[in-house]
């Protein structure tokens, strides 16, 4: 048994001190916006603190980049969902004007579902939404999605399992 190299000690504060401006510059190159980069650098450090494992980080910048990519992904995905939601709201005949606050709540809920179903293929996602939002039966869904009823069942099981798993993790 050989003694292992001791990982470098990092407190979250030291990590912040040493790498915050580097991370912000890194994010800015990807976002092209200083304000967004500052927000996302902040969010990334919130994730670092939530992990509470800072003392075992060996490659701080690789680690921060990984977390920052997740933050970036969440940021982009939220923007996509928000845009898609506002577009489909706008396309409604009787355009209801939702308040800023209720819109934010809906987008939060969308992010939550989106995250839970992240690993689901698009057809399975369609299946689940037809069932949950449109209340369609499996025979009808099978025709619309272009798969067999057995596949619809399998998709439903995957989707519900992911929802339950997301709740167990929460």
């Amino acid at each position, binding site marked *: 048994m050989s003694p292992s190299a001791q990982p470098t000690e990092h407190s979250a504060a030291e990590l912040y001190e040493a790498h915050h401006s580097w991370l912000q510059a890194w994010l800015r190159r990807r976002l092209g916006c200083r304000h967004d980069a500052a927000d996302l650098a902040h969010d990334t450090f919130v994730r670092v603190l939530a992990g509470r494992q800072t003392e075992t980080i060996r490659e701080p910048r690789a680690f921060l980049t990984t977390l920052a990519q997740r933050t970036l992904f969440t940021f982009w995905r939220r923007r996509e969902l928000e845009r898609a939601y506002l577009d489909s709201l706008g396309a409604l005949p009787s355009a209801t004007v939702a308040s800023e606050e209720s819109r934010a709540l809906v987008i939060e*809920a969308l992010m939550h579902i989106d995250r839970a179903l992240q690993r689901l293929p698009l057809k399975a996602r369609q299946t689940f939404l037809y069932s949950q939002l449109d209340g369609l039966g499996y025979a009808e869904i099978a025709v619309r999605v272009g798969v067999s009823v057995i596949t619809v069942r399998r998709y439903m099981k995957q989707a519900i399992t992911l929802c339950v798993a997301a709740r167990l993790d929460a």
Partner: protein
Amino acid sequence: MTAPLLPADLESAVDWMVLLSSGSVTAADRARFEQWRLADPRHRAAWEKVNAAVKDSFAALGGGEQRLAAGRALLTPPARRRMLRNALGLALAAGGLAALVDRQTPLRTLAADLRTGTGERRAYTLPDGSELTLNARSAVDLDFSAGERRVRLKAGAVYARVAPDAARPFIVATAEGEVQALGTVFSVAREEEACVVSVVEHLVEVRAGGQRRVLRAGEGLRFDARGLGMPDAMLADAAAWQTGMLVVHDESLGAVVHALQPYRRGIIRITPAAARLRVLGAFPLDDTGRTLESLRQTLPIDVTSLGGWFVSIDLRRASH
């Protein structure tokens, strides 16, 4: 997609929800569902949990047209997710390159399951520097704290090369018992209702059913919830999967097929008579076609393949 593993009650509740959402539920289905639900308070609790997990997710979307608009937004394909996920996936798949993974594995992985799919064997470097290889179709939860490093083996098998840390014992736990590293390389594999531990280097302590025993390199033993079996050098070879080989000394053909199944997308069905045949040898796991062929050549069996997806094994008929 591999769905996560749920506890059995929850999985049954999910199955019921799949059935009840079909739009063509019969009165008999409903009666069977009620019977299941009322049979056990745990069933009721599981049903409520599953119901809430689905309904609550959609409740916040509002009602009517607003709800449909929100639902349509969810069908927006993620523009950049694929790219990021692939980058992460590649980094993890390159698990053998410990240095790279060490740099790329986010510590968040600690809170998440590691799992492998069919035919996929993968090495992960854990943030403490230990290396964990998952056999095909295996799943573990990592639970690392200041006091201990606990790996919960939920399915399949793991091979661990443990980084020394006297302050934090490294434990592989299963439903049946647990195995603690005493500075070590070892493997733990789940079977139907038992586990096999094989020690490759140094020592481990195995604990199950109130018994405990220290095993040394070259030994293996089988344990279940009732306690420990006798140490057996033959079982030490059970860890050979880590190098891509299945090594058996006088095992049943049924057990061999069971070990091959995680490496094959299709189904292998074997008749009870053929499953009782005894097998001796070393077989490549990554080429199950070749392994089945060499079994066919050495044993009195017929191996019939239907479209590559379904393989049936039976005793060779007399006419051959």
